[in-house]
């Protein structure tokens, strides 16, 4: 019974983690779809958002969940600036080495994480919100339950907000004109250009939205996680692993991939060892590359065509 309890508890925490991972990966998948580049500064942009949330909490006592509304617009503008002044000019540069833009995002990541170290020191920080250790227990609802499961309140709250943001993004992409233009650019930039979509503006918007999404993820992560300057790399890895599992540039795939990775990681952490969780992450990444190069998206597509 204890085994089952452990398993279910791992599954629940993996699921909650997966929802947040999905939010990180959504932004990356969106950028990947429209720009055809992997944004390797993604985690560091999240780190920026987390520092914004941290300082707002420390200096003004603003709840991290509220700072979503400050951090996301700020990083939206930051992302637009990066796209306009760094990535778009590089697209026109001729060079022997391919993937110039990807290397550029690595440079950006180096600058961001190092600047954070210099400005805010390498200390581990967290926002001690007063509901941090609140939780709901299964025995509270069902008195005679044979097993005990708990649901941490900040985790659940973050998860629910992540779901809400994901649905909002889905509505934005599928119902509004701008969303449709973004999807058109992602499908075929040349055709979109011919049909009168301002491709460059869509790229700027997409990069902005991608950064805003990861900023939300950062604000949702900070009540349940701790913060240090080089944390970005870890979440960049999470982001691109999910993007590959989900299928490059597919937003639906990113959500499913996020859940898969979240569950897989907490399973490795529980059953193999805490330190091995990153290895599990990369093992599933390599497995996805080798056995399922199209990602989850290719399975979804095959299903649809089968009907």
């Amino acid at each position, binding site marked *: 019974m204890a085994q089952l309890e452990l398993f279910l508890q791992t599954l629940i925490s993996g699921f909650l983690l997966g929802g947040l991972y999905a939010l990180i990966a959504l932004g990356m998948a969106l950028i990947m779809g429209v720009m*055809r580049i*992997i944004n390797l500064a993604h985690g560091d942009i999240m780190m920026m958002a987390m520092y914004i949330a941290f300082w707002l909490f420390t200096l003004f006592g603003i709840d991290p969940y509220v700072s979503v509304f400050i951090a996301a617009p700020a990083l939206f503008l930051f992302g637009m600036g990066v796209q306009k002044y760094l990535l778009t000019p590089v697209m026109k540069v001729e060079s022997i080495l391919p993937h110039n833009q*990807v290397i550029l995002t690595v440079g950006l990541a180096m600058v961001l994480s190092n600047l954070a170290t210099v400005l805010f020191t390498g200390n581990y920080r967290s926002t001690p919100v007063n509901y941090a250790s609140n939780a709901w227990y299964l025995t509270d609802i069902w008195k005679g339950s044979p097993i005990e499961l708990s649901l941490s309140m900040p985790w659940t709250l973050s998860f629910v907000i992540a779901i809400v943001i994901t649905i909002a993004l889905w509505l934005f992409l599928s119902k509004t004109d701008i969303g449709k233009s973004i999807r058109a650019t992602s499908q075929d930039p040349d055709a979109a250009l011919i049909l009168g979509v301002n491709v460059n503006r869509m790229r700027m918007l997409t990069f902005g939205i991608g950064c805003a999404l990861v900023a939300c993820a950062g604000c949702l992560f900070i009540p349940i996680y701790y913060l240090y300057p080089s944390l970005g790399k870890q979440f960049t890895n999470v982001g691109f692993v999910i993007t590959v599992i989900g299928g490059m540039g597919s937003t639906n795939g990113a959500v499913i991939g996020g859940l898969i990775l979240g569950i897989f990681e907490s399973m490795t952490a529980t059953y193999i060892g805490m330190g091995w969780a990153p290895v599990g992450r990369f093992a599933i990444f390599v497995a996805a590359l080798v056995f399922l190069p199209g990602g989850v998206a290719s399975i979804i597509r095959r299903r649809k065509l089968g009907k």
Partner: protein
Amino acid sequence: MKKYLPLIIFTVLLAVPFIGFSTYIMHILILVLMWSVIGMAWNILGGYTGQVSFGHAAFFGVGAYTAGILYQHLGISAWWGLPASIVVLTALSLVIGYICLRLRGAYFALATLALGEICRVTAENLVDFTRGNLGILIKERTWVDKTWYFYIILFIAAVTYSIIKIVMESKLGYYFVAIREDQDAAESLGIDTTFYKTISLCLSGILTGTAGAFYMNYMGYIDPGVVFPLYDISIVTVMVVMVGGAATYGGPVIGAVIMVFLAEVIRSLPHIGAAHQTIFGIILIFIIMFLPNGIAGDYLKLFKIFRKHNRASS
């Protein structure tokens, strides 16, 4: 003249220990040569074959750990790591090649990045084998003086340079460039692209690993954070080649000279020293935007800028 330039440089370098530079300058020269080897090795795969790798720290670190583990567990001299790392790195390259080389472009870059991280985390967690974060320390140094270290790394660099020269002027080199320029076209002309990419990766991996094994012997201490980091090894490798010039013989050497001196200068400055990665990142962005083919590749462009500047000022 240009043909004999490498030979002249080699001869000059042979004479360097007789000048009697201070230990510090010898240390810098050794580092420059080591980074030239890594840069040249990366250049085979990234510059000539067009497969950009973000994970050369994996090869470097495995080379270093091969030497370290031979010393730690078998009790033999870590210098055996040089020949041993060739064997280990060949095996590793074949495995990595099998997994990653079926991928193209950005996928390949990501896969190598992930493999570099896998190596780091594995080295951190296999505590019984690698001593984890404690690292491996060589208790007795072979030489206190730097002269022999200098000659050894000079020899490795010369061999690396010759290998690259020979390979790139043979049929193999043309295959590599063909793959870089257009993989589909190369394949349709009957080049077994995966096979030649694997050869390129093996060469690159072995040479990087040799540099790693040398590093273990030279520095006498390694831990996963020193030999497997993403920014300080993998990305600096890419930078060495990008600054100097991808797909040129001399580029990585120029890049290594610039990067090592720059790193030393920046680190020695008060206050700014902690921000060396910021400065490296800005340089990287600058190079990508304005000198995408590096100093050796774009020197004509550099001349033009300077000439224009001179004309404007005179």
